[in-house]
């Protein structure tokens, strides 16, 4: 590794002058019961007017670090200093509200907006709690609308403040989040995989807003699993591994391969390969047939509009699209988790329109849900109990010996970082929770796998393993696979046939060789 490591601790920062430091985290440690050491004496400086990319494999402590800066977690040890005037002063951040009042704002992958309220009402909640822009508890919504109009014009982001949040696209919701950060005059913006899976065009629109914030002297921390994204937008890259900072480099002085080695080590980074497992089998019989499917979302609006789709045994069908275009609802309806308004779904020639989840699963269909915490796991229970609930369908007693063995195999093969099979799932990192779900569902699939964003929070090495495993299952075990993913790279890498989902309709089929720009155009048209 030849990249120049600038610093691993705040004390020896040298690239920028200490004058320019806006926030300094020093010797931050955090553990969770298990015990799981999430952060081990992490020191990191943020500079005014920079974009810092924070990278690391799953469970490396990235999210924990930004959650500490945002007041969601309290560190076990260490301190945070913030620039006040010309000096750095020790601060305590007790809650997200506290963080916001100090000018720190976080935008995560899932927009933290109240869907039933309008954009203005959501903004009003923040503005009134912080009492900024002259907004107080009794300020009329009319006045708030005026303020939002004026301020967003200044910032250059146009959003109808009267629009209900559930009517916004995913990109618009993230824009509202960034707008909110600008409104509260955020000095530090923390982006936890917030923009990673947007199409390039949409992402670049948001980059403009970020550059504006940076230009005003703000500091932005981007967490991403995509090294390419970090290379494109950041000034510096910091890499965490097993809760420790392993290096901080200037982006212009490093390469993707060097960063990869910092993240995974020499050995694992060599294993990262984007070579696609080719389909050897001829296309099998139709396994899943969907005819003229109409489905409603949680608010009773038609979100899937007349979808027709056939998935054959042994093939992987990928659905690309920006989040919120009906992919989740389509997949939930296929596995029986969501009521169908009209249309038919056949699995192995059995109409499963009203079969319910149990019968569909018994036909050999596995499901990786989009809403992981709602449908993917039971947080209080251990890994082995979660696996048992999904795999043991009959009998009074649970064969714990067998389930324990299966769990250990899954932990080993998918490299799930957990103290033991008995660890409650709630103590695992987000990526390791997803790995637990993905491992269980992929290895449990007999006839079909329906997956929504199966690698969304996984690091590069884990994501590639999962995609490879999905293709191997399809090719070797004649599995029919349907994947909906916000990550276009994933769809291109894993699919035999590609569809685009936009405003509830499917466009396609396309081949994986279709130019990326053409696909992205269909995603945002």
């Amino acid at each position, binding site marked *: 590794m030849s990249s120049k490591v600038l610093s691993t601790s705040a004390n020896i920062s040298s690239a920028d002058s200490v004058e320019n430091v806006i926030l300094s985290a020093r010797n931050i440690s955090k553990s969770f019961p298990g015990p799981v050491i999430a952060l081990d004496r992490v020191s990191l400086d943020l500079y005014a007017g920079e974009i810092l990319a924070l990278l690391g494999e799953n469970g490396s402590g990235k999210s924990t670090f930004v959650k500490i800066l945002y007041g969601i977690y*309290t560190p*076990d040890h260490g301190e945070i200093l913030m620039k006040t005037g010309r000096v750095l002063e020790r601060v305590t951040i007790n809650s997200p509200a506290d963080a916001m009042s100090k000018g720190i704002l976080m935008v995560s992958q899932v927009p933290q907006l109240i869907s039933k309220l309008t954009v203005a009402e959501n903004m009003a909640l923040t503005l009134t709690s912080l009492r900024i822009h002259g907004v107080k508890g009794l300020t009329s919504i009319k006045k708030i609308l005026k303020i939002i109009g004026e301020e967003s014009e200044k910032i250059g982001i146009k959003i109808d403040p009267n629009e209900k949040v559930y009517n916004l696209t995913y990109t618009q919701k993230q824009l509202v989040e960034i707008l909110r950060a600008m409104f509260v005059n955020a000095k530090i913006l923390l982006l936890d995989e917030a923009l990673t899976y947007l199409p390039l065009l949409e992402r670049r629109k948001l980059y403009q807003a970020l550059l504006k914030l940076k230009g005003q002297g703000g500091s932005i921390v981007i967490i991403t699993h995509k090294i390419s994204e970090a290379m494109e937008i950041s000034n510096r890259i910091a890499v965490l591994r097993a809760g420790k900072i392993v290096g901080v480099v200037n982006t212009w002085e490093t390469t993707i391969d060097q960063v990869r080695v910092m993240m995974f080590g020499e050995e694992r980074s060599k294993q990262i390969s984007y070579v696609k497992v080719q389909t050897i089998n001829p296309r099998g019989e139709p396994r899943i047939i969907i005819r003229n499917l109409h489905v409603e979302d949680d608010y009773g609006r038609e979100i899937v509009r007349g979808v027709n789709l056939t998935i054959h045994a042994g093939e992987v069908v990928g659905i690309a699209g920006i989040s919120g275009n009906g992919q989740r609802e389509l997949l939930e309806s296929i596995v029986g988790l969501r009521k169908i308004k009209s249309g038919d779904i056949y699995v192995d020639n059995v109409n499963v329109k009203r079969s319910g989840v149990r019968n569909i699963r018994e036909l050999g269909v596995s499901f990786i849900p989009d809403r992981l915490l*709602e*449908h993917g796991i039971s947080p*209080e229970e251990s890994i082995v109990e979660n696996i048992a*609930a999904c795999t043991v369908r009959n009998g009074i007693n*649970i064969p*714990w010996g067998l389930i324990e063995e299966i769990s250990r195999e899954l932990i080993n093969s998918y490299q799930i970082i957990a103290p033991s099979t008995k660890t409650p799932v709630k103590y695992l990192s987000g990526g390791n929770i997803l790995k637990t779900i993905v491992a269980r569902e992929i290895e449990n699939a007999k006839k079909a796998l329906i997956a929504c964003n199966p690698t969304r929070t996984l690091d590069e090495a884990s994501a590639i393993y999962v995609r490879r495993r999905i293709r191997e299952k399809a090719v070797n075990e004649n599995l029919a696979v349907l994947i909906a993913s916000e990550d276009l790279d994933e769809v291109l890498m894993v699919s035999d046939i590609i569809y685009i989902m936009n405003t509830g309709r499917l466009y396609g089929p396309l081949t994986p060789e279709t130019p990326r720009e053409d696909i992205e155009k269909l995603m945002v048209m």
Partner: protein
Amino acid sequence: MRFIVLRRKTIPRYHTWISTAISLILGILVYLFITILVGRSPLEVLVNIARSFISPSIVKDFFVLIAMGCALLISFKAALWNIGGEGQFYIATIPGILLTLFIFNPRYNPAPAPLVILLVALTGTIMGAFWAFIAALFRAYLKIDEVPVTLILNYVAYYILNYLIFGPFKGRYVYGYLRTDEIPEIYRLNVRVHLPMRGDPLQVALQNLTVQLAYYIALLILAVLIYVFTWWFFKHCRIGLYTKIHGSNPGYLQAVGVSVNHVILLTMTISGALIGLTGSIYLLSELGRIPYEIERQTAGYGYLAILVSWLSLLDLKMIPFSAYIVSALRNAGIALQVAGLGGVEQSLLLIGAILLTYSITRFLVEYEVRFEW
């Protein structure tokens, strides 16, 4: 200055037992402090409380509360708040009265006692299960919260019993009292042991304990059986796992193809069945007859068991320990009343003080509180 609250990474091995013991001592100290404030002799009060903790007379309450604490634990683990233990307990006595006093009354229709006892237990179990099942139906299919439904069903059960005692179940050999007849001796489950009750105080206490254990042997066996069942249910049974998951994330059950409604029905029914079984055995072991205005004469096991279950923090290992504390405190309250040291508020105050210190120590076991200047 600020407080920092952190979840502990490792919890001391015997934390549960130590924290409970500490909270017990602290709670009693708080209680004594209050009694001093109102001008009572703390020594006299303390002696009465201490006696209750080592009194053999708590064995009956101890066994019943273990059984019912376990039964409620099953529903509480599923986040189904069955507070209808009282109703399920008493409604289960109806078939027992019917079978022993009417259908198989030895005066005119004798039947083998083991068969009748078995029938009483079986029908009591079904009755308790049915009573909880009603609340489960409301919860599962009408989405009506089980707390008010189970609570209301307690009163429905009381009034059904009152009606029966006032009418068809009214005793013929009750000397004008409003109650049922006494259940015939052949159907009773007590073993009477006569010991001399002589020797030093320890010997007398041991003899007394032996007498009590023999007398309530059926309740002892029941408590052990229900405890073992509950352990098996959560440790090995598939439904037990679903029950736990329902308490954590019902959406996951739905996604793996398990009917959430069936889990609600099963869990509540099993909980009610165990309470019903306890009620029917208690009828043959202790009650012997049902008096009119049952709500005024109940020992309140259905409510005390809620306390037992909560004190255990839904940890099965802790159920016997919390059942012991609650039964000792209940008896302490009675002893204080008998000794003229206060009314029923004495036991409530004592239980309240211990619950307060228990909540604080439990919190401190799981979390570390730091002060920073």
